[in-house]
């Protein structure tokens, strides 16, 4: 009796010292049901399946890989995905991967759940690990709407109905706006193209053919808004055509052509040749970039319904992202416009650099090789 005393007394204080077992399950709507990514702690899988085959306590990738089928079978058998009256059987997709979470390494399972009909409500029954660890929790996200919170499933509360109708058009719209903003900020080629068009906006052509600063902020701002809006209108147009399946261009061709457009825009700053209105150029090349955006939207998984909100949301997001960058760029450029350094280093030097990067892209995309560090 005595031997056991001290042990239990001290336990409560240290027992909180670590995160208990969680798994992270994320479901996204796909054309015929859902795609899922499920992160399960390797420590938990080892406790259930005995992955550490040599028993040395150091779980190696080879030991995990050897048991890949067992892992996938066990984990997927502990989730039932269904819609009112109709199950959506799950199948693994691709090989097992690994992810590091704050408390250790997790196995990452990608899977699909194919639903016979387009679901209006999703029923989940989650039973992973509860028999081995009643304190286990399933942390579940059903994507498709920003308003959708995180569900926490436990041994005593392991089934849940997720009303998909709740993913209102508005929250879906909001999600697409965010996607658009994210894309324009992460999509370097579109930003560089825009930058190449914007650099000269605080300057005007001098009679001798060179550049001189504009006098007032107003005209520069109008110029910029015209360029950005022309770009948006144009890419919205082609993006919609592509998303509706009315026009399809090979992506390698589109990506290469986008690189060419960046080169042209940059070159025109260094050797001014295209006279007249840059907004027209922005419009023409925007048509091209729209096809580029379309591949992103396809990656996001287009819902069968609400295509219009999706497209509109994404375009609004792209426009907002662009305007945010303009709001930072323009005042600075306007202040610097009189300096020689702006015309020489920033306009000419910057454009040359943009052109060079685009040349490498062109080579990469046209020849399908990789040069720039990833």
């Amino acid at each position: 009796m005595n031997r056991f005393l001290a042990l239990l007394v001290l336990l409560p204080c240290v027992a909180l010292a670590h995160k208990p077992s969680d798994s992270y399950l994320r479901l996204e709507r796909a054309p015929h049901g859902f795609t899922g990514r499920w992160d399960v702690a390797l420590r938990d899988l080892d406790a259930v399946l005995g992955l550490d085959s040599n028993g040395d306590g150091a779980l190696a990738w080879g030991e995990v890989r050897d048991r890949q089928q067992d892992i996938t079978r066990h984990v997927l058998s502990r989730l039932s995905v269904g819609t009112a009256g109709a199950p959506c059987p799950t199948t693994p997709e691709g090989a097992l991967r690994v992810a590091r979470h704050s408390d250790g390494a997790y196995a990452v399972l990608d899977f699909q759940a194919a639903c016979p009909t387009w679901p209006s409500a999703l029923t989940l029954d989650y039973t992973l690990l509860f028999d081995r660890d009643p304190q286990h929790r399933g942390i579940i996200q059903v994507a498709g709407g920003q308003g959708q919170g995180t569900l926490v499933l436990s041994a005593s509360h392991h089934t849940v109905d997720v009303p998909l109708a709740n993913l209102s058009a508005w929250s879906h719209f909001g999600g697409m706006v965010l996607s658009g903003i994210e894309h324009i900020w992460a999509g370097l080629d579109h930003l560089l193209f825009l930058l190449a068009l914007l650099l000269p906006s605080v300057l005007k052509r001098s009679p001798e053919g060179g550049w001189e600063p504009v006098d007032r902020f107003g005209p520069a701002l109008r110029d910029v808004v015209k360029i950005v809006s022309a770009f948006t209108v144009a890419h919205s147009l082609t993006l919609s055509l592509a998303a509706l399946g009315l026009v399809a261009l090979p992506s390698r061709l589109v990506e290469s052509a986008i690189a060419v457009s960046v080169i042209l825009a940059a070159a025109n700053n260094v050797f001014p040749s295209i006279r007249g209105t840059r907004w027209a150029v922005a419009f023409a090349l925007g048509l091209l970039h729209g096809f580029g955006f379309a591949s992103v939207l396809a990656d996001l998984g287009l819902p069968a319904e609400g295509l219009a909100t999706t497209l509109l949301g994404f375009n609004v997001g792209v426009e907002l992202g662009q305007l945010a960058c303009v709001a930072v760029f323009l005042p600075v450029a306007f202040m610097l416009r009189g300096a020689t350094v702006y015309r020489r280093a920033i306009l000419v030097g910057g454009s040359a650099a943009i052109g060079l990067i685009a040349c490498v892209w062109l080579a990469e995309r046209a020849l399908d090789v990789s040069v720039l560090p990833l």
Partner: protein
Amino acid sequence: MRSVMRPRHSVLGVVLALACGCSRGPDTASAPFTPQSDTEVLEQVPARATDARARERAALRQELDAQPRQLELAVRLARLELKEGRARGDPRHLGWAQAALSPWWDEPQPPHEVLLLRATLRQSRHEFDAALADLDAALREDPRDAQAWLTRAVVLGVRGRHAEAEKSCAPLDTLAGALTATVCRAQVDSVAGHSGRAYARLSEAMSRRGALGSPEEQAWALSTLGEAAARSGDTRRAELLYAQALAADPDDAYTRAALADLLLDLNRPAEASRLMKDHATDDGHLLRRVLAETALGSAEAATLTTELASRYAASRLRGDTLHGREEARFALHVEKDANKALTLAQANWEVQREPWDVRILMESALAAGTPDAAKPALTYLEAIACEDPGLLALATRLKKAAP
């Protein structure tokens, strides 16, 4: 969403995004990857081949899987898992212990051993009232159960119910021996603001009676004595006693954390960090290391801070609020967000009443410039007639700061 960003954007994308004053999209901290080689070690797990304790647990679990209602097997496994959880600071073992007891877990009147283990597990999740109910039931069944009396004393002490806790130590005199009873009383006295008295009585009893039995029990007595010394301001003696406790039981995570706290208070962060370094899987230890590295202003501080913050976020995601005391310290000293620290400390105050809980509430209120917010702590210190110099000094500063 994961394939939105095509890789060619990544490096240059950051550069330009910065130039534009725009931030990049979602975090990629848990981005999946395929390890380069089969020999790459991904995780440490219980070593069934080389660790006898792990082997024993695995064997028991297998036996139990075949006959889950074998009470004796289940209790043995649950105890072993508890012990392992204590040593590793990994609460998974507590879940595994509960699983072993699952045939009886939801019963209103489970077997005596299950009641006791259930109380301990419930306490570890801060379900104090449920734990006390289990302990009371266990004691109604068997008033001679020393373990139940002792655990009950500890739970009551954490809740600030010191008089009842003290009463719960009394039966130990006859049931478990005078020294065990003295350690129990010293523990209650020490959390009740009378650490000087606790130290005097316990050191006297220990010198008279000699050492307790097992290394764990020795460590428990030495650690209790060290904690009393630290609280009464005798930091040199506290350091020595903690070191002795750790020598007796190197697995004692509680004492290791207490020593690190002492070193931090003594402004010796480098030593505190060294002590915690090999125990980063334990959130409590990681917190002390982050506090130390932050005090040192080291390059590592930022990485460790991010890691700890994401662990707290993960806990919140699963709905846990067990980290209030630690998170408040993190908010106050690392994030330097006194208001956030105060909110956390106030919520924690509703659950726990140990010296650290009093201290963090007072420190946060001071830092936030709202001394009134610490009023419950001041009232409490007066009610228990606290004598600990550290807490009293904080109380004096608060009273001066109040308008």
